[in-house]
């Protein structure tokens, strides 16, 4: 199936780099998520409510 990759001069580097970029991406996101502080998460998830003063017409 991968016949044509034999013709790819230096193709191995191309493939290995692609794979490494892919791995690296998830490692970075993973590490970042692991290090996130709880406070920050709380603040961020409450942003949509900061303007929220319940007005009469909003009460269902």
């Amino acid at each position, binding site marked *: *199936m991968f*016949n*044509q*990759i034999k013709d790819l001069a230096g193709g191995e580097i191309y493939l290995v780099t692609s794979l490494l970029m892919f791995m690296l*991406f998830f490692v970075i996101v993973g590490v970042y998520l692991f290090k996130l502080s709880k406070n920050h998460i709380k603040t961020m*998830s409450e942003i949509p409510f900061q303007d929220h003063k319940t007005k009469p017409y909003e009460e269902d």
Partner: protein
Amino acid sequence: MQLEKFTYDNRIVRNFGIATLVWGIIGMTVGLLVAMQLFKPAMNMGSQYTTFGRIRPLHTNAVIFAFVGNAIFMGVYYSLQRLLKARMFSDTLSKIHFWGWQLIILSAVITLPLGFTTSHEYAELEWPIDIAITLIWVVFGINMFGTIIKRREHHLYVAIWFYIATFVTIAVLHIVNSFELPVSFMKSYYLYAGVQDALVQWWYGHNAVAFFLTTPYLGMMYYFLPKMAGRPVYSYKLSILHFWSLIFIYIWAGPHHLLYTSLPGWAQSLGVAFSIMLIAPSWGGMINGLLTLRGAWDKVREDVTLKFMVVALTAYGMATFEGPMLSLKQINGVAHFTDWIVAHVHVGALGWNGFLTFGILYWLIPRIYKTELYSKKLAGFHFWIGTLGILFYAIPMYWAGFTQGLMWKEFTAEGLLKYPNFLATTLQIIPMHVLRSIGGTLYLAGVIVMTYNLAKTMLGAKLVANEAAEAMPLPKIVVDSSPADKAWHRVLERKPMKFMVLSLIIILIGGMVEMMPTFTIQSNVPTIASVKPYTALELQGRDLYIREGCVNCHSQTVRPFRSETERYGEYSKAGEFVYDHPFLWGSKRTGPDLHRVGGKYSDAWHYNHLVDPTSMSPGSIMPPYPWLIEQKLDINTTASKIRAMQTLGVPYPEGYDKQANEDLKIQAEKIAADLKQNNIKVKSDREIVAIIAYLQRLGTDIKANKETIPSNQ
């Protein structure tokens, strides 16, 4: 620091909302019309301007870019202002954006029925409109980033990341898929040909789904759903992971639209692998949405907006599970080119996009009018008739898809095709098409009821055009309160431009990895010596094939299955398409594949078939094309078309543009003479002659080939 007073622009939100309603009704009505033509071709009203091939693109463009497009802008303009605590950057830009977008849609409504099309699916609009789209998109970008810059909130909430990713990626997709060489005012040829054109188109097509129908809607979900439920999003961490992995992985999955074609095998496999991976971030979003409603399910029973949101998220979950499954080669082999794909798309479109839009409209319109919804009962009715509409649409389409896909592949015990006549498989599923249009009618009825309900709401109150708000301004220099606050994402959340560049890099990686080898490595598209450029008449015929939108029902790529080589002939090779600007492989077989149709029938058969398809194939649902006999072929364009092709690297001899029309006339005379022998009197200068010439050429070059064609699988 003093509290600043400012206002939110609600007028622009309202305007985009009204446009969503109006274009929604128009786009869905056209959809219903094309659906009915699939069991009653006479529903084209005998006019070329309302025939399936020309107005199917009108339906797709109208629902995607007009209905969903306006809904996106409505949702973005409402939530962006509130999340950033700032009015939109410029009211003038907002207005230019609004009217510019409506004019672009209007130009599509005019040009597509006239037959001006590039033939690339969901990118059919010709080059002048492409330029207009680019300009208006830039206006939207400036307005959005201007607002972000003058914001009064440090951090960019997750919804805004989705908006930024949408803006950047759609810009890249649109530009790369619009590299066209203009031939005249409303005609152009793509720079890419054949396999490469196919790869670019489906990289675009797939990611238009990702970044026009998905990311902006996820952004809106992350703002509106917590607002409706009155509680924050279930997991903000999950939203970060979901965002980055979604935009990173989505961009690679395009080649799953080209499985078993002559696209290099490695690119197909890459597309499949990434499609499977896509389940994770897609379901991350769905789960995050549904779990936001934890503890609020009692509200779902009461609140119709939440009902719409729940069905939307469920449909999103189903469609994003089904998509990866469809990308598995074994399943794709049966499903591709059938109604299964139409069902899949509509679960996403009617369920996810449609219902999320309705939910937001019902929530947002009363708020910007400071009133209550006119009738909750009618909204409840809309919910149920809409849900029924989706079921009546999707189930028959799945049924039709399975049936047709299996019939195409069925062999008798003797090893012959059980249904050698393609038409038998079409006629089998006609009842399903009738049911589907009933589903569509129900869904459309719901939208009309909603429009009435919202119109009554709007007419009964006054728009709060400028809604007062107040917030603290941002200090000029942001000083981190603690050193730990320097985590890169937190910094990034405050630096929109860096955020945009990073998203851009992330989305470019996948596209580049897939496209670069296909474009730069010769052996990826093995050439075939016997494949020659089209004659002048065939080239004109090909452009008529494009104008009539034949590609909407007929594919031009024979897959390497015995069921296909038995039915159509030799499977398609990459080298056969090197002069095809654009490629015309298609994505749906309402009629049979045409790649090997050349030489299969006589000229007279084609003539009779085009004028009255049922005369040659009783029961056929192909519309008649009588105007092809009445209309004269415009040969003034031949020279410029030949020159354009030469610029694109098609090896016509030097100065051939001047001689082309002579050759064209000779070939046309020959076909007219052949028709005359069969008692068909037609002038050689008619369009039908050119299209017959093209059809007779299709897939024939390879027959003269004496050498082995290297496989690229």
